[in-house]
């Protein structure tokens, strides 16, 4: 394999990995503060896609549609918390997981009934389809934009979580919810905030996802949620750096198998990547960067 090819693959890993990392972060944030693995998170990605689809087909420009998509995902995430998860505050992991699964099915069927059960195409801006040549490398603008957006989000989120009072209280709540409340952190506010940021990340990742695939479908949320779920578990559920690392590890595993497998077994690259993930979990059952303190 030549150096140029390796470079190409690294760029692919970075671009795919930053999408996964964004998705995983949104999931990990909510898990941190309320112990919920939000299965309906994938539907926020789908909601972003459908908002963009409806607006672009009605003549709104792509940029405005994308901004509205992100806004809608954020609002929907907040509504989800209010309507479905607040009554379940303090329920077991299993109950919360089932509830979010049910919610995800409801939303999928709303898309199916309200818009169309079929896959619909979205035309992205022309710029994203083109690519640039740097020496021997051909890089699509899509990858460049994805990597830049991913990096910007990660930096912004890190600054927010480390620097602002809200971010610090969120980290405290993730570490120990009851003690954080004793220190004056408002439970409702910190959970709502986690859902807002989670929705924002889902929206941003959704825009990237939809521009990459160029289509929306009612069940499209399933793939992103699985990737995010897996990435958070590889990294260690509850750890934010872990979620980012997990996203990149998953992307690397996927690209690796696409590259090394012969074309005849190419369709099996995803199963192989997942098996590798299970193998990682066999040796590190708590994930790569699991929180140190054992919850008793």
């Amino acid at each position: 394999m030549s150096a140029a090819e390796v470079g190409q693959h690294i760029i692919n890993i970075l671009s795919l990995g930053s999408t996964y990392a964004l998705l995983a972060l949104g999931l990990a944030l909510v898990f941190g503060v309320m112990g919920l693995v939000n299965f309906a998170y994938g539907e926020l990605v789908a909601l972003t896609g459908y908002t963009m689809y409806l607006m672009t087909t009605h003549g709104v420009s792509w940029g405005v549609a994308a901004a509205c998509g992100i806004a809608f995902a954020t609002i929907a995430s907040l509504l989800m918390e209010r309507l479905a998860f607040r009554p379940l505050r303090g329920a077991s992991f299993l109950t919360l997981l089932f509830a979010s699964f049910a919610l995800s099915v409801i939303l999928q069927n709303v898309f199916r009934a309200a818009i169309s059960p079929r896959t619909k195409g979205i035309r992205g801006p022309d710029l994203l389809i083109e690519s640039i040549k740097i020496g021997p490398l051909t890089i699509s603008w899509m990858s460049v934009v994805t990597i830049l957006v991913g990096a910007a989000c990660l930096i912004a989120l890190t600054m927010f979580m480390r620097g602002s009072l809200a971010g610090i209280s969120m980290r405290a709540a993730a570490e120990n919810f009851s003690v954080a409340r004793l220190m004056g952190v408002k439970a409702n506010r910190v959970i709502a905030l986690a859902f807002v940021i989670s929705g924002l990340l889902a929206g941003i990742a959704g825009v990237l996802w939809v521009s990459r695939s160029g289509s929306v479908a009612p069940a499209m949320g399933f793939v992103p949620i699985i990737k995010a779920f897996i990435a958070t578990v590889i990294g260690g559920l509850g750890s934010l750096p872990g979620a980012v690392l997990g996203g990149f590890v998953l992307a690397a595993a996927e690209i690796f198998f696409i590259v090394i497998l012969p074309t005849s077994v190419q369709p099996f690259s995803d199963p192989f990547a997942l098996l590798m993930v299970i193998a990682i979990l066999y040796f590190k059952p708590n994930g790569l960067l699991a929180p140190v303190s054992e919850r008793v």
Partner: protein
Amino acid sequence: MTVFARIVPSRYLRAVIRSATPLVLVLVAVLAVGMILAPDGRGASYRLLVNFLITVVIVVALQMFTGNSGIVSWGHAAFVGIGAYATAWFSVPPVIKEDIFPGLPSWMMTAEMGLLPCLLIATLVGAGAAAVIGVAICRMKETAMAMSTLALLVVAHGIYSNWEGWTRGTEGVYALPVQTDIYVACVFACLAVVLALMFKYSRVGLRLQASREDPLSAEATGVSVVRARYVAWVASAAMSALAGSLWAQFNLAFGPAQFYYAQVFAILSMLVIGGLATVSGALIGAALTNVLFEILRGVENEGDFFGIEVPEINGLAQMVLALITLLILIFRPNGLMAWWELDGWLVKAKERYWRGGRRPALDASKKEEV
């Protein structure tokens, strides 16, 4: 009761028999209804009842693992699929097999087996696959385990859709012989219920339930949580594969889409609605959900709900089921049956309604959730 105790000296068996009797009676009643409605073994209602009985096996199998261990498995649909495909490999007539499964080795190519050998093979294949996968999965933490079963579902779907020579990919399999009828389905549903109860009251089952309530305390009192989970995992996967085999030999044609997201959701909802912790809950959840699905499917197709016009909505049945699941989780998080098997529940109901509303003496221990 003393006579009962004298006939069956083992307390364990008495508990199993006591809990199994009402459930088996319900299943036999379903059989009786089937024989009255469709004595010739044809028609929509017959198909509905047989599929219901097979669904009972699938849900009860999942209850064995998820109910006792408290760990959700999305992966059991994969084992149902393994059972179905294994059955197809050994029961489709060889002439057609050459066409649809070109990858099979010659000894499998010529095989054309009856009901029981097919069920046996499917169960063994399912158990074998689960035994291998379980080694990795059962060591993990609860949350990671749930995720890995989801990964398992995706992996299995990927294999079923792409392994052309053995599964015919997304085009699907056809031409299985009809070998399951209502009697077979009823016998295996009863068997599943009895086995699940035997497991629940057995030593390893009790250990597993202890680990569901508190893994750390269970471990501290000497329970090997990993081993208990492993046993339940393999047993319930084997039963799922058996159910898959029964299902395949009744529905005769299937593809990878039959063992995926939508099915997993339906099965999990049945379990949640009825109540995870009990076998009776699995049975009752399956029954209610099936009735609901039939009514809603009628509404969906005919746009008519007991004379009220309803606009055509795609996926209405699924949506209503999801909504009910959500409401159950909010207002009755342990499911309709909660901690009661049907026998205990009947005793409770009798005390409450026949003796002037007295509270039952023995209250179900309330689970404290953290």
